[in-house]
């Protein structure tokens, strides 16, 4: 096992916790799917209903742990940059192995999935007869498998980070060379990404005004992808005030007042609330959906204002646009 830094040990310990409780939850999920029957009055059913509470506690713990662990991971990868030649921020480190990009995306997906499960569970416990229990546990099995994948990827990532191999820094990864991150997104150039970003946002706004909640939910997932792409392609250059610097990770650093943490918080929470309107549309009632989409549209609008603030303030200070 490749050993790089003490933080890695802590991350492995946390992974071990996920593994342990994940296995326990898997076992319970299996029992639930096989035996759960609300109308039975056996001792088994009684203990299963108790275990329902336990599993929902475990998943709450997972969420509460996963959010700081995610940021801890990002900070750790960022702090490795000086030891990997050529890397100036997290991108270089992530890109030095084939797993990095997928791992970050998988981590975000897992956070979203855990959040959906948490919401489903809350509604399930409120219903008479726990009608969503079986579905909930099928979904849980899927989530646990995804978490295990995440752990496998993480171990592989740490194993293959090498302090001797030279990697590309973020400037060259996002600057046009055909690399992993570029293959992943559509290869749009210039300001097309901003236009699409704005179009999606306007569509979101319209569907919110006309209360098409299901449509709104789908749009907010698209919004997340488009927003991150336009952040890399267009807005980050204004944050760095450098036409060639395109990077979604350097904004997390001190030089830019840690603005990235605010941006990602707004974006992720906003699109999470929005997309759960779509994912849970069979379960939630109309007023809840309305409330969530309201929160979501506020957060997304705030995000939009913050990123455009950088562009406009740059224009006012210098009297010109960056074109790169």
């Amino acid at each position, binding site marked *: 096992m490749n050993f790089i830094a003490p933080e890695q040990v802590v991350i492995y310990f946390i992974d071990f916790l996920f593994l342990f409780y994940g296995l326990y939850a898997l076992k319970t999920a299996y029992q639930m799917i096989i035996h759960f029957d609300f109308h039975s009055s056996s001792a088994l059913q009684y203990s299963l209903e108790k275990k329902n*509470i336990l599993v929902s506690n475990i998943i709450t713990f997972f969420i509460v742990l996963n959010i700081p662990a995610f940021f*801890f991971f990002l900070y750790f990868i960022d702090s490795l940059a000086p030891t990997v030649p050529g890397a100036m921020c997290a991108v270089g480190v992530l890109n030095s192995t084939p797993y990095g990009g997928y791992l970050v995306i998988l981590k975000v997906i897992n956070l979203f999935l855990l959040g959906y499960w948490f919401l489903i569970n809350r509604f399930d416990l409120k219903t008479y007869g726990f009608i969503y229990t079986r579905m909930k546990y099928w979904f849980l099995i899927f989530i646990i498998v995804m978490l295990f994948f995440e752990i496998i990827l993480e171990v592989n990532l740490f194993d293959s980070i090498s*302090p001797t191999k030279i990697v590309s820094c973020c400037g060259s990864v996002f600057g046009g060379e055909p690399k992993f991150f570029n293959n992943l997104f559509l290869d749009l150039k210039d300001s097309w990404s901003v236009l699409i970003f704005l179009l999606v946002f306007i569509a979101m706004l319209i569907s919110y005004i006309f209360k098409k909640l299901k449509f709104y939910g789908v749009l907010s997932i698209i919004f997340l992808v488009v927003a991150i792409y336009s952040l890399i392609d267009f807005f980050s250059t204004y944050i760095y005030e450098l036409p060639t610097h395109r990077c979604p990770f350097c904004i997390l650093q001190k030089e830019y007042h840690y603005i990235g943490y605010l941006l990602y918080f707004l974006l992720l929470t906003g699109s999470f609330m929005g997309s759960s309107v779509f994912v849970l549309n069979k379960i939630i009632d109309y007023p809840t959906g309305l409330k969530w989409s309201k929160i979501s549209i506020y957060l997304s609008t705030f995000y939009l204002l913050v990123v455009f603030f950088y562009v406009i303030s740059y224009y006012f200070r210098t009297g010109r646009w960056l074109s790169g």
Partner: protein
Amino acid sequence: MKIGKEFNIFLFSIKLLLKRKSSYYIFLILMVLVFFIASASFITASIKKELILTHEELPDIVIQRVIGGRQQYIPMDYIDKIVSIPGIKSILPRVWGYYYFDYSGVNFSIVGIDPLEPFYKKSLEENIKHIKTDDLIKRDDWMILGNGVRRLFSEIGYVDYAYFKKPNGEYIKLRRFDYLTQESAIFTNDIILISQNTARKLLGMDDDYVSDIVVNVYNKNEVVTIAAKIRDILKDARTVTKKDVLNSYQNVFNYKLGFFITLFGVLIFTMMVIVIDKLGGLSETEKLEIGVLKATGWTTSDVLRLKFYESSFLVLQAFIIGVLLAVIYVYILKAPIMMNIFSGYASLKTEYQLIFAVDFKTLFLIFIAIVPFYIAAIIIPTYRIATLDTYEVFK
């Protein structure tokens, strides 16, 4: 209104907590754990900070001659070959090496200096500023001792004179001239400064040879390119840049801290076992408490919240007090015992200054190394407590 209810549950939970004896044990265990991990991290953080502060002085490039994996002495005419590379600010030959002192089984660093030539290292120059160079030029048999060497020599009675063995078995006698000052002991602890001629004799080196060559450049961005050019001209040379040195230092200390945390991983699991044991074996009074609460209309989730408040209060208290104790231990008491793990293994141990270096990142590392594990350890016991039946309790 709802917040008021939550706050009342919180206050009530603290009241219950203070009544129970086991909570004090758990608090003590947690605090000790936080204390150990925090002290280790603080020591590493401040050593790293000291290294980064002092690394400014390291030369940009060191040229070594390596044949068959062994470092060899470099002929002086190598300097003439690379002197025409553009961008080089200065080239200084160094005469230095290790001297094995078999009486105590330690290695000294012998550094040969020419009092008339500039120094390759500023801090060393500062260190001997108070020494008059005139006296040094007149004779050859002087030595200037670093602090660790001074202590060792005074133990064995080498106060004014010391004897050194040449490679051919002859001894030479050197007169103690002065000591180095205490500052930045991390680099000068085991150093003996002697004249270049004497150093050559002790190290078995011919007159037109040096140990390695130090190159400084004007533009720091060109270091890699210039190093490559040097390797191109001098076929048997290896170049070590400032960044290489710093990285290897950092890796060493990271490794030591990692070793420490791994050890304490074992302790963390011990703690988990203890906590589960303490909470799992419910006492009669505790059972009665829960029973009464449930009988008076508390739901399972209320009891869960109560227990959650209890343990988060406990672990946060332990975290804060443990970190404070560690700050006192490391920065005020200068980490008496634990420091030995981090400084070297030889009997000439380096003394570090322990610069104050507590930042958010270190605290976050300690937090995430302790708190999740405690919470994880209490999930199942808490659930067992919360789902107790009133009926069973009162039976």
